[in-house]
Structure formats: C-alpha cells, structure tokens
C-alpha cells in the first residue's frame, strides 16, 4: 500500500480518522440546537490562536485550542445574557477572530503567512507527530464527555426551557457543548481546515437524520458516515493532489445528495402505492360501519373491516373517507398480538 509508505500520510490518515469520528458526535447536538454554524464561528476564532502560536513560536494547535475554548465560553455567556445583542456580539467575535488571525500571521517572520491556506482548508502534509498526540488526547476527552453527558446535552439542546425547569445546569451544559465544539475545531485544523470543519460536524448528521429513527442511532450513524468520508476524502486527496478539506466536504455533500434523493424516491413510491390502493377502493359502495355486513376487526386505535380476506382501515381526509389496506388475515381470527 504505497499511501501508507509515507509517514506524513500515516499521520494524516490517523488525524482524519479522529476528526471524522469526533466532529459528527458533537455536531448532532448543534443540529438539534439549531446552531449549525457555531463550529464555523469558532473556526474563525481559532485562527487568531493560530496567529498567536506562529508569532510566539509555540505550537499553533495549543494556542488555537485556548483561543477557541475562550471564544466558546464568551459566546455562551453573551447568549445567556440576552439574545438581541447576542447576534451582533457573535458576528463581532467571529470576524474579529479571522481578521486577528490574518493580521497576526502576516506579521510572522519569513512570510509564513503563505501557510494561511493550509490552516483554513487543510493540507495533509502538515500533520506533525506532536499534532497526532494532541489530537488523540482531544478525541478521547471529547468522546468521553459526549458519552458521560450525552443525555443532558440532548435535553438542553432539545428544549432549553424544559431543561431549566427540571433543574439541569443549562448554562454550564451549553458551555461544555461549546467547549467540545471548540476542541473539535482544533482537531480539524490539519486535515479539514478551520473554515470547513463545520461541514464535517453538520453534513454527516444531516445524512444520519434521514435514515435513523432514534437520537442514539443518529449519533452512531453520523460518526460512521463522518469516519468514512473523512478517511476516503484524505485518501482521495493524496492521489488526486487536491486539498484534503475540500475533498472531504465535497464527498460528504455528494453522499448527502445521494441519500436524500434515495429517501425522496422511496417516499414518493410509498405515496404512489398508497394512492393506487385508494383508487381501487375509490368507488367503494358504502362506508364501513355497524351492520354493513363486513366483519369489524379492532386494530390498535381504530377498527378495520374485513373485506374478502383483507382489512380495510377507514382513512378520513378532507375529501372524505377512503380505505387503506391493513394487511390480510384469516377471516374470523383475531390479528396477531391483539388477542386481549
């Protein structure tokens, strides 16, 4: 496998594995909270941290982490104080973050500002061994927090007021979530880039939402999707010579379009089938009811009527009543599971 012959590719793949797993695990809560763009904003703020790191010759990953977490806490405090001014305050913080980063980087010796692209959009060659170690620590901390506090974070993201009414520390949990987002942003710095990380938090979750039935399923599926697109995108970018961040995000958006089209087609088919059944019984000679000659069969919260061996369920719509098929059953026998 020639891709694994390169040390930098091994590190890039490790980093993409971690960010692919972690970003959606945090992103699902942002989607639930309808704050999908928080990751984007914290990416801006992290850039100032990168600038400070480059200027002071400390590891930019650490300084970015500090800047992003500070920004995250500040945002939650502003949000908690009042919403109207919060919107403007967020914009100021976000654009201040990216402007600060650009200016600080331009002051760096020997024109290192050319690295800006790699921080913003990801570049697989830039992951250092220390980066991988830091990323591993961040990943473990973030995933542990999600496992420990997941249900509370869900409660707060779902219905902040209810969470407050039952005594959950809403502000604290919001700050924890924002700090998780900030950490994830930093995790993305090498492979996906600070401007594109938000996509890897949100798009896998959007895909999982289309398919999953429960919150738990959504989180698990989003992590799998994130992992796959992240590793596949990094690999593709190695062979195609494209920036890794853009490749990963395009791949996940392509998957999103594919899945949502599939789901839409499936739903349309189900609707068509339903309508065809309706047509069959459109000219139904009578409305089922007491004494219509068809055997009534209790079915959950309604009554079906036995009609030549299949069950008719009245379906009342604005235009009147038609009959849905609720499966076949032997005449006279109670339907399965409803013997009581």
């Amino acid at each position, binding site marked *: 496998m020639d891709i694994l012959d390169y040390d930098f590719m091994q590190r890039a793949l490790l980093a993409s594995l971690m960010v692919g797993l972690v970003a959606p695990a945090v992103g699902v809560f942002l*989607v639930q909270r309808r704050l999908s763009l928080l990751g984007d904003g914290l990416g801006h703020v992290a850039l100032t941290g990168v600038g400070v790191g480059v200027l002071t010759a400390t590891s930019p990953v650490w300084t970015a982490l500090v800047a992003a977490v500070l920004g995250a806490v500040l945002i939650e405090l502003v949000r908690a104080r009042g919403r109207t001014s919060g919107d403007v305050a967020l914009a100021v913080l976000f654009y201040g973050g990216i402007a600060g980063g650009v200016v600080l980087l331009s002051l760096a010796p020997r024109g290192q500002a050319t690295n800006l692209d790699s921080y913003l959009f990801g570049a697989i060659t830039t992951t250092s061994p220390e980066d991988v170690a830091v990323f591993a620590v961040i990943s473990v901390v973030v995933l542990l927090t999600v496992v*420990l506090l997941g249900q509370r974070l869900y409660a707060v993201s*779902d219905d902040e007021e*209810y969470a407050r009414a*039952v*005594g*959950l520390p809403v502000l604290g949990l919001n700050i924890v979530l924002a700090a998780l987002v900030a950490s994830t942003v930093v995790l993305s710095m090498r492979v996906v880039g600070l401007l594109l990380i938000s996509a890897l938090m949100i798009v896998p979750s959007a895909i999982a*939402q289309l398919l999953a039935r429960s*919150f738990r399923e959504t989180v698990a599926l989003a992590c799998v999707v994130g992992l796959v697109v992240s590793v596949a995108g990094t690999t593709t970018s190695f062979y195609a010579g494209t920036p890794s961040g853009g490749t990963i995000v395009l791949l996940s958006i392509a998957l999103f379009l594919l899945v949502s089209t599939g789901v839409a087609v499936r739903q349309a088919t189900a609707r068509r089938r339903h309508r065809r059944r309706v047509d069959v019984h459109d000219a139904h000679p009578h409305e089922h009811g007491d004494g219509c000659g068809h055997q009534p069969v209790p079915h959950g919260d309604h009554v079906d009527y036995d009609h030549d061996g299949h069950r008719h369920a009245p379906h009342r719509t604005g235009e009147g009543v038609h009959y849905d098929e609720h499966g076949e059953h032997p005449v006279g026998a109670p339907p399965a599971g409803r013997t009581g």
Partner: protein
Amino acid sequence: MSTTPAGGAPVVELRRATIGYGDVAIVRDLDLTIRAGEAVAVLGSNGSGKTTLARGLLGLASLLDGEVQVLGARVGGLRDRGRVGYVPQRHSVSGAVPATVREVVGVGRLARLGLLRRLGRKDRAAVADAVAAVGLEDRMDDPVASLSGGQQRRVLVARALAAEPELLIMDEPTAGVDAANQQVLAGVLGRISASGTTLVVVTHETAPLADVLSRAVVVDHGRLAYDGPLAEAARHDEPGVHHHPPARERSGYRLDQPTVTTRPRGAAHEGH
C-alpha cells in the same frame, strides 16, 4: 386563603407574590395556597398572567417581590427537582434530530438523577410506566415525529410523569388537541390526580378537563379575580361578562393601570 376545603399540606404558597421577567411585573401581589392532592385550573384571558404564574412556580419567571414556596422550599431551592413536573405548551415534540418516545420521556427522568448519574434499571422502569400511563406503550421505540399531534402532547405528559412528581404543572395541555385525544388526556390526568399528585393546569378551556379539575383560580390583569369551585368559575372567566367591565371602559382602565408595569430598576431586589 384558599376557598377549597383544606386537603393535605400546602404544596404551593404565594404570599403577595409579584412575578415577571426582567423588571417587568406581570403577576402582582398574588396570594394563593394549593394543597396536596388538589386539581386546580388556572384560568384567564390571553395576557392575563396565568402562564407567568405557572412559570413563576418553576423558576422560569422571576419572583420580583413577595414570596413563593413550592413543596416547602423557595423556587429554585428545591433539592430534588424531580418532585415538580412540567408540561410546557408546545404543539410538537419533534426536534431537528429524530428521537424515540423512550428517549424523549427519558429526559424527564434526568430531574431525579443529578448531573452525572445515568438511567438505571429503576429509572428505565419509571420511564416505561410513564409511557404506559399515557397509553403509548406500543409506540415506545417509534420516532416522536411519527406520532399525531395529540399523541405528541401525551409524550410531553409522560416526560413529566417519568420523574414521578408530587406536583404537576401543565400549560394548555388540551389546546389544539382533537376531541378524542382530549378525552384520553382527561382520563390520564384523572388517574394521575386520583393517585394523589397535585395538578395545576393553566388553560383557557375548562370543558375538556371539567371532570378532573375541581378548583379554579382566575387571573385577570395579573391579579387574582376568582378562587373557588371550577363550576362557578366560568362566568368569571368569560371576557366581558360580570366582573369584567365593558370593552370601552376596559380600554380606559388599561390606560390608567397598564397590565404590564415597568418597575424602576433596582426595585426587583427590594425585600430580599
């Protein structure tokens, strides 16, 4: 203070309570005692302050003056928040991300668990019982988005029941629910009340729950306008009838004494 025959211990006690948001007082100078086991309707027209009264009991609106005690503790000072259940006025439960009935109702149980404890066997049993109490046990693992509006309302009731509360506060549980589901809901609330849980139901329609609620408290312009048997409350609650001045007079009354009073800054902290 209560005109209802004395039941158990006081569960809710308001003494000259002024409740509102920020500096804005909405409920003013209200005295009210609700005892264990009572089933009380809080009535009033839109903007009367009935919802603010309920939110004040939950710590979602601020106490600006006076005193509010819930289950013997100051609002927010209750150690076990699970003892007070809350059903917010919300027409749908489904958020952006899919969640099952079990997951949504499980959130209600968190009130009993502190910050880190996870749902144990006993908690999961309480969640299952709560879902069964509203008759949705066979929808346990279905996404809430697949339920009808009336069923989703029952999910919200189950979420509150999951913590096994002694006091259940509900905001407009029957609004926008069809007759069949209102009947189911009335049955559920009747059973909850019969089991000894104190009910406080904010509502603008008493008919669906007439068999469940016995006492009514009517709030008008933030003040207590009536407290007594539900059956006799109807004429106090209808706008323009009896104690309400005719519409023209009323608008003048509002000009002199606005419903919403902006209190001077700092006033909120007086008396603390």
